[in-house]
């Protein structure tokens, strides 16, 4: 008869793994790292010279003032958007400016660019210049940034539907890159108005 191997007591193993579990629970955090990515302009004086060269029709100026209202200058006109209406009105203004669907001479010029997967595409030269007052709250600033991002995202989605028949988040990385090149995010964050 074969000798019976004595069973090992594994009760303590559960205790050890419980300890490890609590250790990891305490020292770690579920990351909710999400946000709006932006690129700051390079620290050089050349950039400022270039900015001066941009023609008036290609700039949309957005000034967020101390009362957290927004003053938009585009098409040679000025509008004031109150804080409550930022979420509803700003996006459409930005979209109209960036897309320029009717080739309005007061809205940004376009230039033809060869893009892989897309062919020749008319890329807008429009730049949104975002300035703020010293007393603007960060919350409003992000609200404005969010609306601008939404405008760009919707334009990209429309272009993606047009060219590839799908929305941005379902495209291949290469197709995504093409769309991103066709509709760039040109938001210039100048430091402050005064």
């Amino acid at each position, binding site marked *: 008869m074969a000798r019976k191997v004595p069973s090992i007591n594994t009760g303590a193993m559960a205790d*050890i793994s419980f300890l490890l579990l609590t250790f990891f629970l305490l020292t770690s955090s579920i990351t909710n*790292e999400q*946000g709006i990515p932006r690129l700051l302009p*390079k*620290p050089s004086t050349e950039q400022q010279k270039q900015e001066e060269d941009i023609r008036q029709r290609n700039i949309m100026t957005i000034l967020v003032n101390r009362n957290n209202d927004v003053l938009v200058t585009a098409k040679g006109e000025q509008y004031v958007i109150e804080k409550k209406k930022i979420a509803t009105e700003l996006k459409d203004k930005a979209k109209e400016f960036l897309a320029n669907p009717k080739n309005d001479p007061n809205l940004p010029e376009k230039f033809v660019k060869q893009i892989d997967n897309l062919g020749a595409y008319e890329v807008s030269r429009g730049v949104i210049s975002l300035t703020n007052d010293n007393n603007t*709250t*960060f919350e409003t600033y*992000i609200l404005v940034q969010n609306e601008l991002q939404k405008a760009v995202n919707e334009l990209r989605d429309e272009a993606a539907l047009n060219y590839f028949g799908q929305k941005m988040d379902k495209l291949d990385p290469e197709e995504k890159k093409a769309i991103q090149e066709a509709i760039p995010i040109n938001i210039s964050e100048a*430091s402050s108005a005064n």
Partner: protein
Amino acid sequence: MARFRKEGKKEVPEINTGSMSDIIFMFLFFFMVITTMRESDSQVKFTPPKASEYQKLEKKSSVATIYMGEPKKQGIPAIDEVVSIQLNDKFARTRSEDMKVDIKGFIEEERAACAEKDKDPNAITYSLKIDSDVKMRYVNILKQELRQNNALKINYSTKKDKKEGK
């Protein structure tokens, strides 16, 4: 003798606890995978602003976090007694020359740490965790400093807007 045998039969059978550790190990691995180590606790009040067009931060290994907000405790250096800048676990000093030195030092440290791991120092994303009530004048100071030091990739930390979240 019969009495003894009877009691032996009444004994509750032992529960096999061998699989318990397996279950707990599964929990452990689950938590290890979905979490990352917290590098520094925020010592400032930080309520992120809401946004619907957020993107998930990629490459968590090359992210440097800067907190900005009202200090939670007394004795933390704060600009105008209102806003502190927290760089990892340190705080930037408040005199503007000192602050510049501190921010520059922080960026250089992050770059050096990144270069040690054979990663591109220019790929570091600076995650700005700024409280929604902070006035833009302080944010602008920070942005200016980042720009001067060629730290251009930034990310404004936000939280999901429940009303129009994707």
